[in-house]
């Protein structure tokens, strides 16, 4: 009997060693350890043994059983690992093949930059004001110290609807509308469409966008204007940016200035973008003319303020290196998809 047990043990271990699939292993488990298995049938013969032999053989038989079980277990783990490895190998992908396209829409470049400017000003405590595009002559000109017959009207070729209604040529009329509705302190920007009778070309469009700014409070000076717009320039073009105020003329601000930023491409050394100047003009500004404050119902002896106007298209064209303004209104998908 002992020989038989040992023979079974040897045969089982050898076969287990050779097994190469979990199924073959399972077969072996049934063959040796199953209810009708070889080991079981040997154990059935235990009854015929003597009382002395029985415990010895019993012990041996159990040892054989657990040895076979251990080997089965060990082999099973081995085979599973191997099988997993094969499966993973078979699942290998060409990870360089392109991903499945995800489609989202593209924000218009005008909106991209406008949102950025809005965020900057919201962060500085500004609110966003709006006004009508079809506007009274009064708000667009008269209230801004540009009476009928003023030569400044000539520089802004105006679309008229009637003698007294026009398409606003600037966002500045919103200044007066805001002042009429709100008492100081005032801190607003007013972005929007403006209209001028310019034929379409690479740098002109009869419709374009401005961003007006207005700050009115007690004790506001040109220092505040300078500091505020320097902060804007730094947020737009980086900490190293400098600004330069050049005297200029707008009828509704006094003193007036144009503001240049140090060229964001060359840093001010001079390059094709800044035409060798080192400076790029980005906006016009000035102290709100006392007459304009008065027209807005604000006492110029008590309050002062500054205003500025930014041309959005100009910012956008610089930002994205766009050389033709018409692209912005052409809305070609091949253009829009680049943003």
């Amino acid at each position: 009997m002992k020989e038989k047990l040992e023979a079974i043990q040897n045969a089982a271990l050898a076969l287990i060693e050779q097994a190469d699939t979990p199924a073959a292993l399972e077969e072996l488990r049934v063959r040796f350890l199953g209810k009708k298995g070889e080991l079981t049938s040997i154990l059935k013969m235990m009854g015929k043994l003597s009382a002395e032999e029985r415990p010895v053989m019993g012990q041996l038989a159990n040892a054989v059983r657990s040895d076979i079980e251990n080997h089965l277990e060990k082999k099973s783990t081995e085979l599973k690992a191997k099988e997993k490895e094969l499966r993973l190998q078979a699942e290998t992908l060409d990870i360089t093949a392109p991903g499945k396209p995800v489609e989202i829409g593209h924000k218009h470049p005008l909106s991209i930059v406008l949102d950025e400017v809005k965020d900057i000003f919201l962060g500085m405590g500004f609110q966003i004001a709006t006004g009508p595009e079809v506007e009274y002559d009064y708000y667009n000109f008269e209230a801004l110290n540009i009476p009928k017959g003023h030569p400044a009207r000539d520089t802004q070729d105006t679309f008229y609807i009637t003698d007294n209604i026009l398409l606003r040529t600037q966002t500045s009329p919103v200044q007066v509308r805001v002042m009429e509705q709100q008492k100081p302190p005032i801190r607003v920007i007013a972005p929007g469409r403006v209209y001028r009778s310019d034929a379409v070309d690479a740098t002109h469009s009869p419709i374009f966008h401005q961003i007006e700014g207005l700050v009115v409070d007690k004790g506001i000076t040109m220092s505040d204007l300078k500091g505020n717009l320097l902060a804007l320039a730094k947020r737009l073009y980086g900490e190293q940016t400098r600004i330069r105020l050049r005297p200029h003329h707008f009828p509704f601000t006094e003193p007036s200035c144009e503001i240049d930023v140090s060229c964001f491409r060359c840093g001010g050394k001079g390059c094709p973008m800044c035409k060798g100047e080192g400076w790029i003009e980005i906006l016009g500004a000035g102290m709100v003319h006392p007459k304009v404050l008065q027209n807005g119902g604000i006492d110029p002896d008590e309050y002062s303020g500054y205003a500025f106007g930014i041309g959005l298209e100009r910012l956008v064209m610089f930002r994205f290196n766009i050389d033709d303004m018409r692209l912005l209104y052409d809305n070609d998908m091949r253009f829009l998809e680049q943003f």
Partner: protein
Amino acid sequence: MNLSKKWLLDYVDLSVSDKEFADEMTMSGSKVEGITHEGEDLKNIVVGKILSLTRHPDSDHMWICMVDAGQGEDLQIVTGAQNLSVGDFVPVALDDSYIQGGKHIVKGKLRGVESNGMLCSLAELGLTKHDFPYAIEDGIFVLGEDCERVTGTDIHQAIGLDDTITEFEITSNRPDCLSVTGLAREAAATFNKELHLKTPEVKCEAGGDVNDYLKVRIDAPDKCYRYNGAVVTDIKIEPSPRWMRERLRASGVRPINNIVDITNFVMLEYGQPMHAFDLRYLKGNQVIVRMAKAGESITTLEGTEHPLSEDMLVIADQEAPVAVAGVMGGEYSGIMDDTTTIVFESACFNGYSVRSTAKRLGLRTEASSRYEKELDPESCGLCLARALELVELLGAGKVVSGTVDVFPTPKKKIVLPFDPEWVNNFIGIHVSADEQKKILEKIGFVVDDEGIHTPYFRIDIEHQADISEEIARFYGYEKIEDRALSGEAAGFLTDEQAFEKKMSESLLAMGLSEIATFSFISPKAYDKIRLPEDKRQSVVISNPLGEDTGVMRCTILPSMLDILARNYSYRNMEAKLFEIAKEYIPTEKDKLPEENNRIAIGMYGANIDYYTLKGIVEKLLDISGVADYDVAAVRDDPSFHPGRTAEITVDGKRLAIFGEVHPDVAENYGLKTKPYAAVIDFDLLCKVKNTVRMYHPLPKFPAVTRDLAVVCDRATPVLTMERAISKAAGEILEKVELFDIYTGEQIAADKKSVAFNIRLRSAERTLTDEEADNAMKKAIDALAELGAILRS
């Protein structure tokens, strides 16, 4: 304004580089646009003297010249010109030189004869006969007595082609800077130099009394503030001297003859336009400044006849207009070669009047562009005297004693308070009273006990704020400190602005790209979208760029279709676009129109159909929290497909219309595909939105899910069936969802099979089969009432 450096130096001693000049002037308020040097192209061209001329052996028109060009040895140069004589001084382009246009000249052989350079014509120096009236144009420029005729002298210096011209951008408030003296004043103040202005002196060699020659009457004192006139006899019309021609050329004005040149010279020098009439043609020796009469016309100097209207100011003689005041003189009374006695006019007209007249006549001149900015009448006399002084200096004629001065409308003198502290507080600087006074005085202001007296030429100064600008720009804008905005202020988006941002972001997330379109359109666009006549009321632009941009759109649809069409024509396979923009609806006359905000959506492409668009619209409603709305078919909107268009209404108000664009409209736009479009009333959506979100507890009990397929008429709306199911199944209905519509085999031709997935759930307990069956039965019964029979 082009400023001659030579001319500037007559008034200010400046010794700064051109770059420094430009930078400093720009920073003190006179913006420099560019600097050019006369004769920039010309290099290595010198004065030469013709020593001998011999015929070219192999040419019947060329000459071989020996030229002394101051180069040590004489040069042999071949020329084809026929106007040379021995002893002539001429411009010689040496070997390795450059002439006008950048053409390189090197020595070579002409028909076998060595030529060591080239003799130049006026054109080859970039000049014309106007610059040197004695020269001929189709030959070599032979230098006259007015040139430096020394061999070897650089040509720039020899003929005075050596000025530096600075181009200024002068803002409309500073017509005084449209003159050499005005800019000289700014330059003197900028560089802290003296300004040398002289008072003109006139000898009046003709004697007599101007009043015997000329009578002046102003009938329109509101349009003509002042008229000064003088008379000059014994006029000799000839070219003006080189220095005067040079200054005119540098300023961009063509020299004509001494008298015309003097009027232009004074205008450039002082900014005051002048005019000269031939006294012979002033009927009755009378100048009347009046409004034109109906039916009058005038042929102006450039030879065109212009009809005049009654609101145009003219200078007339006894009978007819002889000039359009401040714009242009008449041809008939102009200066001619045989003119002997002239009248000089130095007048001041209303700026607006000149501007509107010039604009309507299409005659914008150097004179009108100055007058229209509103000049001051004070300078008329000074400028007239300067013109007369120049007449005597040039020997152009004899001045009659006295001037006529009719001055009905003097300007009010402005005196402003001198308040240095106000200025400091306004600008944010600390400039002492003394310093402020000095700044003001160097630009012509007088500061005394009364206050600040503004100089007559500064028509732009009328308020303390204007004074502060003068102080600030000469103190230096760059010295003003930066101060960060202080004080508390809350920056936030309004409800509407935040909602617009949300809508825009949602549309982008759904794969639509944003566009920007023009808000004016062609009225023909309404035809293209087949808009009914009664819906076309638009805000009409009275002076549009062209018909294509004649009206403000009253519907945003054509703008969107234009862009779809454009993309289609670019062969872009697919476009999914949106814009949040305005429609403009007229209201009452003389009132502003309504500006209504709309979300426009437009799409075409292979995988896009009505339900793609509807899905987007529904998602926007979902994001807006709008659940209580009605959907109805729109069969009568001519822009849309009658069977594939829907409207969404809230409380009976249309919130959106969307669907397939009518095939005829698509064809009008050249879209050979099916375009889809939606117009959503953003303002209404913003009003009915509910973006407040509240948490609902997650379900504790399982749901029962059942599928239900029915056969019904094709026309039965799915929405009606969904609503019937909802209502019938009652509270425990969690969701009813369409998952299939089938037509075809096994279904009658006029029927469709519709399958729903229905989810039932109770918040309080697990539903029993019986409860679920019961609900389903009610749903089936409700569907049966609609003629939808359970599919077996």
